[in-house]
C-alpha cells in the first residue's frame, strides 16, 4: 500500500474513532443506553490504538508491545475490583492517564530541547503542568 493510501485509511479510522467517542458520551447520558455507550467508547479506543500501530512512524513494535503487556497485566486486575471500590479505581485511572501525559510531555521536551520553538514550549509546559498536578492529586 502506498504511503498516501495508508495515511487516508488512518485518517478515516481516526474520524470513526472520534465519532464513536461522541456517540459514547451521548449514549452514556441515559441509563437505558449506557451499556451501549461503554461499548462504543471501547470500540473507538481500540480503533484508535490499532490504527496508530499501522502508523509508519511506529518504527519498532518491541517498544509498543512490551509496555502494552505490562500495562494490561496491571490493568486487568484493576478492572476486576469490587463495584464498591470503583470510585478509587476511577481516581487511580485518572492518575495514570495524567502521569502518562506528563511523562510524554517530559520526553518531548528532552527529545526536542535544541530546536523547540516558543509556541511548542508553551504547549509542552502547560501540558506537563496539568498532567503532573493531576497525577498526585487524583
Amino acid at each position, binding site marked *: 500500500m502506498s504511503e498516501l493510501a495508508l495515511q487516508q485509511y488512518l485518517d478515516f479510522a481516526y474520524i470513526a474513532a472520534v465519532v464513536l467517542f461522541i456517540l459514547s458520551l451521548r449514549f452514556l447520558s441515559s441509563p437505558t443506553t449506557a451499556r451501549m455507550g461503554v461499548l462504543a467508547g471501547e470500540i473507538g479506543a481500540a480503533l484508535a490504538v490499532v490504527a496508530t500501530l499501522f502508523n509508519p512512524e511506529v518504527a519498532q513494535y518491541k517498544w509498543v508491545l512490551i509496555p502494552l503487556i505490562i500495562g494490561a497485566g496491571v490493568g486487568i486486575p484493576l478492572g476486576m475490583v469490587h463495584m464498591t471500590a470503583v470510585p478509587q479505581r476511577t481516581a487511580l485511572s485518572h*492518575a495514570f492517564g495524567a502521569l502518562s501525559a506528563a511523562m510524554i510531555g517530559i520526553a518531548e521536551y528532552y527529545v526536542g530541547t535544541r530546536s523547540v520553538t516558543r509556541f511548542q514550549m508553551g504547549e509542552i509546559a502547560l501540558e506537563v503542568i496539568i498532567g503532573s498536578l493531576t497525577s498526585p*492529586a487524583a
Partner: protein
Amino acid sequence: MIAAGKLQEILPQRPIVYRGQNIVSLSVLAAALGLAVALVVNPSNTLLFPIMVIVALIFGMLLVTPIGGADMPTVISLLNSYAGFSAALLGFVLNSKVLVVAGALDGSSGFILSVIMCKAMNRSFTNVMFGAFGQVQASAAAAQEERVVRSANAEEAAAILSAANKVVIVPGYGMAVAQAQHKVRELYDSLTKKGVDVRFAIHPVAGRMPGHMNVLLAEADIPYDRLIEMDEINGDFPQTDVALIIGANDVTNPAARTDQSSPIFGMPILDVDKAHSVMVIKRSMNPGFAGIDNPLYYLDQTLMLFGDAKQFVGAIVRELGGGH
C-alpha cells in the same frame, strides 16, 4: 493518588487544613506558571524544566488534601477533566488530531459534570475547591444536646413496609460500603410482589462517584424506570407512606433547608422528612462524611434501624417472606 488514597481510606478522609492554606497553594501554582513562562521566554534553559515539574507535582498534592470525602465525586470529575485537557494539549505537541479531539471531549465533559454536581449541591466551584467543606463539624456536633431517637427491629420494619402503599428507597454510600444492592433488589422484589409501589430516589451527589447509585442498582438489575431523580421525586414525598433510607445521610438532612449555620445550608436535598414515616438504616448515630448531625433522626415519624445495611435489609426480606 491522594484522591484514590482518601477513598480507599489509606489516607484520612477528613479535610486537612491549616491557616493560610489557600495562599500557600496558590503561590505554588503561581510558581509553576512562572517557571513555565520563563521556559517559554528561553526554551533552552533546561535547568528550569525539572523544577517546574516538581512544583506542579507539589501543587497537585496541596490541591486535594483540604478536600473531604463528601466532595470527592466533584473533585474526581474535575481531575478527569484535567487529565482530558492535558491529553488534548499532548495531541498538539505530538500533532495527533485524534488525541486532541478525545482529550477535549474528555476534558469538557468532565468539566460540565463537575459544574452540574456543584449546582446539585448549591455550591460554587471555588467553594468546593477551597472551602474545606466539613471542618465545622467538630464544634457543631459537640454542641448538640442529647435527644431521643426511636429505633425498631427488622420485624417491625417489615410490618410497616408491607402495610404501605408507596415506598421510596433512598440509597447512599452506606449501601455501597455494605454491598447491600442485591439484598435491596430482593427487598424490592418481595415488596412489589405484595403490591407495594417501590421507587428509588437518586440524589445527584449520593455516593462517592458521579452516578454511583445508578451503577450499583443497575448491577443488581433494578429496572431503570424505578430510579427517579431528585427534582422529579421530591414532590411525591408528602404522598409517600414510607421513606426507607439505606446508608444515606447528608443528602437527606433537613438542616440544609432550615439551619442557616449548617455547612450544607442551601444544598438541595431529598425531602424525606415529608413522608408519613421515615426509616433509616444506619450503623450508628455517627454523623456522615460532612460530619453534620442530622435532625431527621429525631423527628417523631422517624424510626432508626441500627445495623449493617446488607444484614438489616436481608433480615427485613426474611420477615417479609415469612409473614405472608
